[in-house]
């Protein structure tokens, strides 16, 4: 099955016929035209984020849909039979059927932040068999987020630091120094938090359980309000119905927020404690980078104070 794309014909290949590493290679090749940081794209591996230009390929969020569509165009799958969902007939899930075009359903790619995680997404959704050997060194979404934040913090610290010697006005220099100090403090705390995976997982699990119990409470409240609304709809009490509707909207708002937070908290709790070696390595590297910046900031602040 072939699709025309940007003048070239893309031959879609059955996922079942490909090794995970081949799927990954095709995914990376497919997003090349959206990568604004071609250097990072050229050396991308399974753990290179699609978004962000410090360590990522520099794909903009406006191209998120392009990533999913690029993956879809290249592969065929047997998960093609649409089964409507019981609670919403406009939505469906996919079950095994005839070989056909791959379809990534809305929300399935929420954690597919790297080529490796995109391959994992295909495995998790039954489009290709699980390959434990391939997944062994795929950095979890949790650590992609944690490490990415650390590099962004480091970048801000270094750029703020660079302004220090160029500020001629002593008052301005003092203000920049205060910003550097606050960023150094943040960098130190971040580096410290990264050292102990057991502490990280403890706090993440607590956050997860707390989120889950709050979600369950909200679900119960929403069910109660919805039931009351059904009963009041049969009466003439429009004021009471309006009040309940307003409560319902407010509860739905909180419920939606909590569901998404719970998904992220669950993902992070599941992976932040048991670091695989490649995650350990990435954490070690970014800690070193952060601490080197902290040390350099200390020297620059001393020099600045001496020169003041």
């Amino acid at each position, binding site marked *: 099955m072939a699709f025309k794309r940007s003048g070239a014909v893309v031959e879609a290949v059955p996922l079942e016929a490909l090794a995970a590493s081949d799927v990954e290679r095709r995914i990376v090749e497919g997003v090349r035209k959206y990568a604004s940081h071609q250097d990072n794209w050229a050396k991308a591996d399974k753990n290179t984020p699609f978004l962000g230009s410090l360590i990522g390929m520099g794909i903009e969020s406006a191209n998120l849909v392009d990533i999913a569509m690029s993956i879809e165009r290249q592969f065929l799958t047997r998960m093609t039979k649409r089964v409507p969902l019981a609670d919403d007939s406009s939505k469906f899930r996919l079950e095994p059927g005839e070989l056909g075009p791959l379809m990534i359903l809305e929300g399935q790619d*929420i954690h597919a932040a790297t080529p490796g995680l995109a391959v994992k997404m295909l495995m998790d959704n039954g489009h290709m068999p699980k390959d434990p050997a391939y997944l062994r060194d795929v950095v979890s979404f949790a650590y992609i987020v944690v490490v990415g934040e650390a590099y962004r913090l480091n970048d801000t610290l270094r750029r703020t630091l660079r302004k220090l010697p160029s500020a001629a006005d002593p008052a301005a220099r003092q203000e920049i120094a205060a910003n550097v100090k606050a960023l150094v403090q943040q960098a130190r705390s971040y580096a410290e938090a990264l050292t102990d995976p057991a502490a990280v997982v403890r706090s993440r699990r607590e956050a997860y359980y707390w989120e889950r119990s709050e979600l369950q409470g909200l679900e119960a409240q929403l069910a109660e309000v919805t039931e009351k609304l059904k009963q009041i709809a049969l009466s003439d009490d429009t004021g009471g119905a309006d009040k309940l509707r307003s409560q319902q909207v407010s509860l739905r708002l909180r419920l939606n927020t909590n569901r998404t937070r719970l998904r992220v908290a669950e993902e992070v709790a599941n992976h932040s404690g048991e670091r695989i070696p490649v995650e350990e390595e990435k954490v070690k590297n970014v800690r070193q980078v952060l601490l080197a910046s902290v040390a350099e900031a200390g020297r620059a602040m001393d020099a600045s104070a001496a020169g003041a």
Partner: protein
Amino acid sequence: MSEAGGGFVGNDVVDLASPLLDVRAAEDDGTRREWIARHLTETERSSVLEGARFWEIFASKEAASKAFEQAGVAVPRGAFRDLEVDLCRRRVTHGPTGSEAEIALLEQNADRIHAVVVFPADHGCEGLAARVERAASDADSSQAAREALARLLADAAPRRGPAERYAVASRDGRPRVLEAGTWRDWSVSLSHSGRFVAVSALLP
């Protein structure tokens, strides 16, 4: 809660001459239609086919998702159809919750579209500042946006001091402002696309 009285701002710029738009224009009709369909709700699709109006909706959605995120109304990555834009009413509605945000600014010229959205919709625009700048061709867009935000803050609140006193960092995944060593809980937003960077802030 932000220092700006509980209001949250998000903005988005689209460079209409971006090479990525050309990439899309070169694709076949079916692919283009599908791409657009993945961003629009049924109501939006019925009012817009494609072209500049699509990009107004797109920029409004991107801007709204940033404002909603800051307020704790989660918009999952890539869930464009959770948001519905009504350009006539200048509103963006978050489908799963019914929450509404206001399109406070939607400006377009031949080069670009810039949307600024404030949540909640009845917050008003007091303290709102926004601007688009052209970034140097060799600039790091993300850094250029952060510097543009520092300049915007200095211009919008001249009594506070010059742009140098601000550093724009990220905390808990959101852009945050450091002012002379103090973290400010101001709602701010950064965006970049092709040749442009755009920034917005809700100041107390």
